[in-house]
């Protein structure tokens, strides 16, 4: 057990401001928000990823951690009080995008039970361009992100077609985050 680094300095205020950022990102897909800029999470966790976990994950929301993030497992277990599981869980944290059709998309009766993928990528605001449209976007928006798989656009189209089922995606890089809810339509930019 190694917990050498602190969590939020002010748990209530910091979690509220990160929650606001995730809410903003979900309702305005592709817009970049700052999160966790004062956090010092253990490598390889980025500050934004850590902030999202500290905010959304607790004892009642088990989280699945990709193998390459295992070094941060103790820190997450201690500061979130979360159970780390391998079975299907509401939150999945990864640095490489797993095939979206392998994740739990919920059911038609309970689409809210679907999985949320928290994906840590190398950079947001630079790299490949994607054109976003759909609910929450008056005009087509451009998202620049690096580290998404080459077949991201067709994979996302398949996920979008499942509506009301489907997986929601939170993208984190450094201290920036944005989100792609299942309703957003992504095209190559």
């Amino acid at each position, binding site marked *: 057990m190694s*917990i*050498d680094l602190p969590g939020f300095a002010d*748990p209530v205020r910091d979690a509220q401001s990160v929650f606001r950022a995730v809410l903003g990102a979900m309702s305005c897909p592709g817009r970049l928000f700052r999160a966790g800029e004062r956090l010092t999470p253990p490598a390889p966790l980025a500050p934004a990823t850590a902030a999202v976990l500290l905010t959304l994950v607790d004892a009642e929301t088990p989280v699945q951690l990709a193998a390459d993030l295992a070094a941060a497992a103790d820190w997450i277990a201690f500061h979130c009080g979360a159970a780390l599981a391998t079975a299907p869980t509401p939150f999945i944290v990864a640095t490489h995008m797993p095939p979206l059709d392998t994740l739990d998309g919920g059911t038609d009766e309970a689409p809210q039970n679907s999985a949320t993928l928290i994906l840590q990528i190398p950079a947001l605001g630079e790299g490949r361009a994607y054109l976003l449209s759909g609910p929450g976007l008056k005009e087509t928006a451009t998202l620049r992100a690096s580290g998404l798989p080459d077949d991201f656009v067709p994979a996302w189209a398949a996920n979008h077609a499942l509506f009301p089922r489907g997986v929601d995606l939170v993208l984190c890089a450094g201290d920036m985050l944005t989100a792609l809810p299942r309703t957003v339509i992504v095209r190559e930019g």
Partner: protein
Amino acid sequence: MTAETHPHAARQRWMAVLARASAAELRDRLVACPPLPACTRLRGPETGLVMVRGRAGGGGAAFNLGEMSVTRCTVRSAEDAAGRAYVGHAYVAGRDREQAEIAARLDAALQDPALAPEIERGVVAPLAEAQRAVRAANAGRAAATKVQFFTMATMRS
């Protein structure tokens, strides 16, 4: 596993003593000790509620007795000359954040073999003795009010 063979028996004992001592008592005892190593806060001190559960009925089913305030704190001591750092935890009843933080720092220091003997002698041992004396006095006062049911015993024999 009995209390004697438990791997953390010693730590359990000093954490229990520290949790029962007030912040003022801890501060008073620390005056005579070498200064505690610098610490960074990993979590808290923060106050919350815990559900105290008991056993109900003959079957021993769990019963929620009520909630109590608990303050917890976790600190990490600065690395010593050998590059070792210790993580100290404290859970104390009530809302005294200072008590929780001092107890956590003492827990970290007591894990350090270089500091443990002096703190054990200067802080833990006297506090344990004082707490034992208070318990004995209370038990003595209560024992004086004990009622012996001679009649019942006589009727059964």
